[in-house]
Protein backbone atom coordinates (compact mmCIF):
# COMPACT_ATOMS: atom_id res chain seq x y z
CA UNK A 1 0.00 0.00 0.00
CA UNK A 2 1.43 3.33 -1.03
CA UNK A 3 0.01 5.09 2.04
CA UNK A 4 1.83 2.71 4.37
CA UNK A 5 5.07 3.01 2.44
CA UNK A 6 5.06 6.78 2.37
CA UNK A 7 3.89 7.16 5.95
CA UNK A 8 6.72 4.90 7.08
CA UNK A 9 9.29 6.84 5.06
CA UNK A 10 8.03 10.13 6.35
CA UNK A 11 10.25 11.33 9.22
CA UNK A 12 9.03 14.75 10.31
CA UNK A 13 11.07 17.08 12.50
CA UNK A 14 9.46 19.45 14.97
CA UNK A 15 11.27 22.46 16.47
CA UNK A 16 9.45 22.02 19.78
CA UNK A 17 10.60 18.41 20.04
CA UNK A 18 14.11 19.46 19.07
CA UNK A 19 14.07 21.98 21.94
CA UNK A 20 12.97 19.29 24.39
CA UNK A 21 15.73 16.96 23.19
CA UNK A 22 18.34 19.71 23.36
CA UNK A 23 17.38 20.55 26.96
CA UNK A 24 18.69 17.17 28.14
CA UNK A 25 16.93 14.84 30.53
CA UNK A 26 13.63 16.33 31.79
CA UNK A 27 13.48 16.35 35.59
CA UNK A 28 9.85 16.35 36.66
CA UNK A 29 7.32 13.83 35.50
CA UNK A 30 3.68 14.84 35.19
CA UNK A 31 2.57 11.27 34.66
CA UNK A 32 -0.12 9.95 37.08
CA UNK A 33 2.12 6.96 37.87
CA UNK A 34 4.88 9.31 39.06
CA UNK A 35 2.37 11.43 41.01
CA UNK A 36 0.94 8.32 42.66
CA UNK A 37 4.43 7.16 43.51
CA UNK A 38 5.21 10.49 45.14
CA UNK A 39 1.89 10.56 47.05
CA UNK A 40 2.42 6.99 48.23
CA UNK A 41 5.95 7.78 49.39
CA UNK A 42 4.74 10.81 51.37
CA UNK A 43 1.96 8.72 52.87
CA UNK A 44 4.45 6.06 54.00
CA UNK A 45 6.82 8.63 55.52
CA UNK A 46 4.03 10.34 57.48
CA UNK A 47 2.55 7.02 58.63
CA UNK A 48 5.98 5.97 59.87
CA UNK A 49 6.43 9.21 61.83
CA UNK A 50 2.98 8.87 63.38
CA UNK A 51 3.67 5.25 64.34
CA UNK A 52 6.91 6.28 66.06
CA UNK A 53 4.88 8.96 67.88
CA UNK A 54 2.44 6.29 69.11
CA UNK A 55 5.38 4.23 70.35
CA UNK A 56 6.69 7.21 72.33
CA UNK A 57 3.23 7.74 73.83
CA UNK A 58 3.16 4.08 74.76
CA UNK A 59 6.32 4.56 76.78
CA UNK A 60 4.88 7.66 78.45
CA UNK A 61 1.73 5.94 79.72
CA UNK A 62 1.30 3.61 82.71
CA UNK A 63 -2.22 2.39 81.97
CA UNK A 64 -3.10 -0.84 80.19
CA UNK A 65 -6.20 0.76 78.68
CA UNK A 66 -4.03 3.31 76.90
CA UNK A 67 -1.54 0.63 75.84
CA UNK A 68 -4.34 -1.42 74.34
CA UNK A 69 -5.55 1.47 72.20
CA UNK A 70 -2.07 2.52 71.17
CA UNK A 71 -1.03 -1.04 70.34
CA UNK A 72 -4.11 -1.36 68.15
CA UNK A 73 -3.18 1.89 66.36
CA UNK A 74 0.46 0.79 65.96
CA UNK A 75 -0.65 -2.58 64.61
CA UNK A 76 -3.04 -0.89 62.18
CA UNK A 77 -0.37 1.51 60.95
CA UNK A 78 2.18 -1.28 60.61
CA UNK A 79 -0.14 -3.33 58.41
CA UNK A 80 -0.97 -0.27 56.28
CA UNK A 81 2.72 0.67 55.95
CA UNK A 82 3.78 -2.87 55.11
CA UNK A 83 1.07 -3.20 52.43
CA UNK A 84 1.90 0.33 51.22
CA UNK A 85 5.57 -0.57 50.76
CA UNK A 86 4.56 -3.60 48.69
CA UNK A 87 2.33 -1.37 46.60
CA UNK A 88 5.13 1.19 46.17
CA UNK A 89 7.58 -1.49 45.06
CA UNK A 90 5.04 -2.84 42.59
CA UNK A 91 4.59 0.64 41.17
CA UNK A 92 8.35 1.12 40.86
CA UNK A 93 8.55 -1.97 38.68
CA UNK A 94 6.05 -0.57 36.18
CA UNK A 95 7.71 1.32 33.32
CA UNK A 96 6.13 2.74 30.23
CA UNK A 97 8.37 0.47 28.15
CA UNK A 98 6.47 -2.56 29.48
CA UNK A 99 4.99 -4.68 26.75
CA UNK A 100 1.68 -5.06 28.52
CA UNK A 101 1.36 -1.82 30.42
CA UNK A 102 -2.41 -1.72 30.61
CA UNK A 103 -2.85 -5.13 32.28
CA UNK A 104 -0.03 -4.18 34.69
CA UNK A 105 -1.75 -0.91 35.50
CA UNK A 106 -5.04 -2.72 36.02
CA UNK A 107 -3.32 -5.08 38.43
CA UNK A 108 -1.78 -2.15 40.29
CA UNK A 109 -5.11 -0.33 40.51
CA UNK A 110 -6.79 -3.48 41.84
CA UNK A 111 -4.08 -3.76 44.52
CA UNK A 112 -4.50 -0.08 45.31
CA UNK A 113 -8.26 -0.53 45.78
CA UNK A 114 -7.66 -3.53 48.05
CA UNK A 115 -5.22 -1.44 50.09
CA UNK A 116 -7.80 1.33 50.38
CA UNK A 117 -10.54 -1.11 51.45
CA UNK A 118 -8.22 -2.78 53.96
CA UNK A 119 -7.63 0.60 55.61
CA UNK A 120 -11.36 1.30 55.87
CA UNK A 121 -12.13 -2.15 57.25
CA UNK A 122 -9.36 -1.98 59.83
CA UNK A 123 -10.32 1.57 60.73
CA UNK A 124 -13.78 0.43 61.85
CA UNK A 125 -12.16 -1.73 64.55
CA UNK A 126 -9.09 0.34 65.35
CA UNK A 127 -10.41 3.90 65.46
CA UNK A 128 -12.73 3.34 68.50
CA UNK A 129 -9.87 1.74 70.47
CA UNK A 130 -7.36 4.42 69.47
CA UNK A 131 -9.80 7.25 70.24
CA UNK A 132 -10.70 5.74 73.61
CA UNK A 133 -6.98 5.45 74.41
CA UNK A 134 -6.43 9.06 73.38
CA UNK A 135 -9.38 10.20 75.51
CA UNK A 136 -8.17 8.34 78.59
CA UNK A 137 -4.56 9.36 78.06
CA UNK A 138 -5.58 13.00 77.58
CA UNK A 139 -7.72 12.83 80.73
CA UNK A 140 -4.92 11.48 82.91
CA UNK A 141 -2.36 13.91 81.47
CA UNK A 142 -4.62 16.95 81.90
CA UNK A 143 -5.82 16.19 85.44
CA UNK A 144 -3.02 14.04 86.82
CA UNK A 145 -5.70 11.66 88.16
CA UNK A 146 -5.72 7.87 87.59
CA UNK A 147 -8.03 6.35 84.96
CA UNK A 148 -10.18 4.35 87.38
CA UNK A 149 -10.91 7.56 89.31
CA UNK A 150 -11.74 9.50 86.16
CA UNK A 151 -14.10 6.76 84.99
CA UNK A 152 -16.07 7.11 88.22
CA UNK A 153 -16.83 10.73 87.33
CA UNK A 154 -20.19 10.80 85.46
CA UNK A 155 -19.20 13.55 83.02
CA UNK A 156 -15.96 11.83 82.02
CA UNK A 157 -17.59 8.39 81.88
CA UNK A 158 -20.47 9.59 79.67
CA UNK A 159 -18.06 11.54 77.53
CA UNK A 160 -16.15 8.39 76.62
CA UNK A 161 -18.80 6.63 74.44
CA UNK A 162 -19.96 9.91 72.95
CA UNK A 163 -16.43 10.93 71.96
CA UNK A 164 -15.57 7.44 70.71
CA UNK A 165 -18.70 7.18 68.59
CA UNK A 166 -18.62 10.67 67.13
CA UNK A 167 -14.86 10.78 66.44
CA UNK A 168 -14.81 7.23 65.02
CA UNK A 169 -17.48 8.15 62.48
CA UNK A 170 -15.81 11.49 61.72
CA UNK A 171 -12.39 9.81 61.50
CA UNK A 172 -13.69 7.16 59.13
CA UNK A 173 -15.14 9.70 56.72
CA UNK A 174 -12.11 11.96 57.07
CA UNK A 175 -9.88 9.01 56.15
CA UNK A 176 -12.00 8.34 53.05
CA UNK A 177 -11.89 12.00 52.08
CA UNK A 178 -8.13 12.27 52.57
CA UNK A 179 -7.47 9.08 50.61
CA UNK A 180 -9.57 10.33 47.70
CA UNK A 181 -7.88 13.71 47.86
CA UNK A 182 -4.38 12.28 47.96
CA UNK A 183 -4.71 9.38 45.50
CA UNK A 184 -8.19 9.58 43.99
CA UNK A 185 -7.43 11.96 41.11
CA UNK A 186 -4.52 9.89 39.77
CA UNK A 187 -6.30 6.58 40.26
CA UNK A 188 -9.31 7.96 38.43
CA UNK A 189 -7.10 9.22 35.60
CA UNK A 190 -5.39 5.88 35.14
CA UNK A 191 -8.69 4.04 35.45
CA UNK A 192 -10.24 6.23 32.74
CA UNK A 193 -7.39 5.34 30.41
CA UNK A 194 -7.99 1.65 30.94
CA UNK A 195 -11.66 1.86 30.01
CA UNK A 196 -11.10 2.79 26.35
Amino acid at each position, binding site marked *: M*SEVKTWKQWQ*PVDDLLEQVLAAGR*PRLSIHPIAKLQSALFQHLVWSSFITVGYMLLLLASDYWQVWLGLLAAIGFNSVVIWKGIKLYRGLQKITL*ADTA*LLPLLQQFLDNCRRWEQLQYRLAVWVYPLAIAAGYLFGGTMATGLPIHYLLQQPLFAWGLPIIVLSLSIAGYFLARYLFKRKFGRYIKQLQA*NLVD
Partner: protein
Amino acid sequence: MDEKEFLTELRAHQGIIYKVVSMYATNDEEKKDFYQEIVLQCWKGIGGFRGDAKFSTWLYRIAINTVLTLRRKKNILQFNELLPDAGFEPPAVFDQEDRWQLQAAIRLLSETDKAMALLFLDGYEISEMAAIMGISAAHTSVRMYRIKQRLAKIIHSKQHE
Protein backbone atom coordinates in the same frame (compact mmCIF):
# COMPACT_ATOMS: atom_id res chain seq x y z
CA MET B 1 23.83 1.97 25.06
CA ASP B 2 25.58 5.08 26.38
CA GLU B 3 24.05 8.53 26.69
CA LYS B 4 25.45 9.82 23.41
CA GLU B 5 24.26 6.80 21.43
CA PHE B 6 20.88 7.06 23.09
CA LEU B 7 20.43 10.70 22.11
CA THR B 8 21.57 9.96 18.56
CA GLU B 9 19.02 7.14 18.29
CA LEU B 10 16.31 9.32 19.79
CA ARG B 11 17.02 12.11 17.30
CA ALA B 12 17.09 9.67 14.41
CA HIS B 13 13.65 8.35 15.41
CA GLN B 14 12.01 11.58 16.54
CA GLY B 15 9.50 11.26 13.71
CA ILE B 16 7.86 8.44 15.70
CA ILE B 17 7.39 10.73 18.70
CA TYR B 18 6.02 13.46 16.48
CA LYS B 19 3.57 11.18 14.66
CA VAL B 20 2.18 9.77 17.91
CA VAL B 21 1.95 13.10 19.72
CA SER B 22 0.36 14.93 16.81
CA MET B 23 -2.54 12.45 16.89
CA TYR B 24 -3.27 12.96 20.58
CA ALA B 25 -2.31 16.47 21.62
CA THR B 26 -5.20 18.88 21.77
CA ASN B 27 -3.09 22.04 22.04
CA ASP B 28 0.52 23.23 22.02
CA GLU B 29 0.86 23.02 25.78
CA GLU B 30 -0.26 19.42 25.84
CA LYS B 31 2.00 18.65 22.90
CA LYS B 32 5.03 19.92 24.84
CA ASP B 33 3.96 17.97 27.93
CA PHE B 34 3.74 14.80 25.84
CA TYR B 35 7.17 15.42 24.31
CA GLN B 36 8.78 16.00 27.68
CA GLU B 37 7.12 13.00 29.28
CA ILE B 38 8.03 10.66 26.42
CA VAL B 39 11.66 11.80 26.47
CA LEU B 40 11.74 11.43 30.28
CA GLN B 41 10.23 7.95 30.09
CA CYS B 42 12.80 7.00 27.45
CA TRP B 43 15.58 8.12 29.79
CA LYS B 44 14.05 6.14 32.62
CA GLY B 45 13.55 3.04 30.51
CA ILE B 46 16.83 2.99 28.60
CA GLY B 47 18.44 0.76 31.24
CA GLY B 48 15.87 -1.89 30.44
CA PHE B 49 16.39 -1.68 26.68
CA ARG B 50 18.27 -4.85 25.85
CA GLY B 51 18.47 -4.44 22.12
CA ASP B 52 16.50 -7.59 21.39
CA ALA B 53 13.75 -5.34 20.02
CA LYS B 54 14.33 -2.61 17.47
CA PHE B 55 14.85 0.84 18.96
CA SER B 56 11.95 2.14 16.89
CA THR B 57 9.59 -0.52 18.33
CA TRP B 58 10.75 0.25 21.86
CA LEU B 59 10.26 3.97 21.28
CA TYR B 60 6.82 3.42 19.76
CA ARG B 61 5.79 1.42 22.81
CA ILE B 62 6.90 4.16 25.22
CA ALA B 63 5.32 6.93 23.13
CA ILE B 64 1.98 5.11 22.86
CA ASN B 65 1.94 4.02 26.51
CA THR B 66 2.72 7.58 27.54
CA VAL B 67 0.01 9.27 25.50
CA LEU B 68 -2.58 6.64 26.40
CA THR B 69 -1.96 6.98 30.13
CA LEU B 70 -1.19 10.69 30.31
CA ARG B 71 -3.91 12.28 28.21
CA ARG B 72 -6.01 14.62 30.24
CA LYS B 73 -8.73 15.70 27.85
CA LYS B 74 -10.70 13.15 25.94
CA ASN B 75 -11.94 13.63 22.42
CA ILE B 76 -11.37 17.35 22.27
CA LEU B 77 -10.00 18.09 18.83
CA GLN B 78 -8.69 21.61 19.02
CA PHE B 79 -5.19 21.01 17.75
CA ASN B 80 -5.48 21.32 14.01
CA GLU B 81 -1.86 21.68 13.00
CA LEU B 82 -1.07 20.04 9.68
CA LEU B 83 1.71 17.51 9.56
CA PRO B 84 4.87 19.27 8.36
CA ASP B 85 6.76 18.33 5.21
CA ALA B 86 10.21 18.59 6.74
CA GLY B 87 12.43 15.73 5.62
CA PHE B 88 9.84 14.31 3.30
CA GLU B 89 9.14 14.58 -0.39
CA PRO B 90 5.51 13.63 -0.86
CA PRO B 91 4.88 11.50 -3.93
CA ALA B 92 1.96 12.29 -6.15
CA VAL B 93 -0.15 9.40 -4.87
CA PHE B 94 0.05 10.62 -1.32
CA ASP B 95 0.15 14.36 -1.32
CA GLN B 96 -0.45 16.90 1.42
CA GLU B 97 -4.22 16.74 0.97
CA ASP B 98 -4.29 12.92 1.26
CA ARG B 99 -2.16 13.00 4.35
CA TRP B 100 -4.28 15.68 5.93
CA GLN B 101 -7.40 13.63 5.25
CA LEU B 102 -5.81 10.54 6.70
CA GLN B 103 -4.61 12.43 9.77
CA ALA B 104 -8.06 13.98 10.29
CA ALA B 105 -9.71 10.56 9.94
CA ILE B 106 -7.32 8.92 12.42
CA ARG B 107 -8.05 11.63 14.94
CA LEU B 108 -11.70 10.63 14.89
CA LEU B 109 -10.87 7.11 16.06
CA SER B 110 -10.91 6.02 19.69
CA GLU B 111 -7.69 6.48 21.66
CA THR B 112 -6.36 2.94 21.30
CA ASP B 113 -7.56 2.66 17.72
CA LYS B 114 -5.50 5.74 16.89
CA ALA B 115 -2.40 4.02 18.23
CA MET B 116 -3.15 0.89 16.23
CA ALA B 117 -3.73 2.88 13.04
CA LEU B 118 -0.38 4.61 13.54
CA LEU B 119 1.41 1.31 14.03
CA PHE B 120 -0.27 -0.13 10.94
CA LEU B 121 0.71 2.88 8.84
CA ASP B 122 4.29 2.54 10.02
CA GLY B 123 4.33 -1.00 8.69
CA TYR B 124 4.11 -3.09 11.84
CA GLU B 125 2.87 -6.66 11.54
CA ILE B 126 -0.20 -7.79 13.50
CA SER B 127 1.97 -9.77 15.94
CA GLU B 128 4.22 -6.76 16.60
CA MET B 129 1.20 -4.49 17.06
CA ALA B 130 -0.32 -7.00 19.49
CA ALA B 131 2.92 -7.07 21.50
CA ILE B 132 3.13 -3.28 21.66
CA MET B 133 -0.53 -2.85 22.59
CA GLY B 134 -0.56 -5.74 25.06
CA ILE B 135 -3.54 -7.52 23.44
CA SER B 136 -3.87 -10.80 21.56
CA ALA B 137 -2.97 -11.11 17.88
CA ALA B 138 -6.49 -12.33 17.07
CA HIS B 139 -8.04 -9.33 18.79
CA THR B 140 -5.59 -7.00 17.03
CA SER B 141 -6.41 -8.52 13.66
CA VAL B 142 -10.17 -8.10 14.13
CA ARG B 143 -9.78 -4.63 15.51
CA MET B 144 -7.47 -3.58 12.67
CA TYR B 145 -10.00 -4.78 10.13
CA ARG B 146 -12.68 -2.61 11.75
CA ILE B 147 -10.31 0.36 11.97
CA LYS B 148 -9.56 0.16 8.24
CA GLN B 149 -13.25 -0.02 7.46
CA ARG B 150 -13.95 2.96 9.68
CA LEU B 151 -11.10 5.01 8.20
CA ALA B 152 -12.29 4.24 4.67
CA LYS B 153 -15.82 5.26 5.62
CA ILE B 154 -14.68 8.53 7.19
CA ILE B 155 -12.46 9.48 4.25
CA HIS B 156 -15.15 8.49 1.76
CA SER B 157 -17.78 10.61 3.49
CA LYS B 158 -15.39 13.59 3.71
CA GLN B 159 -14.65 13.34 -0.01
CA HIS B 160 -18.35 13.45 -0.81
CA GLU B 161 -19.16 16.37 1.46
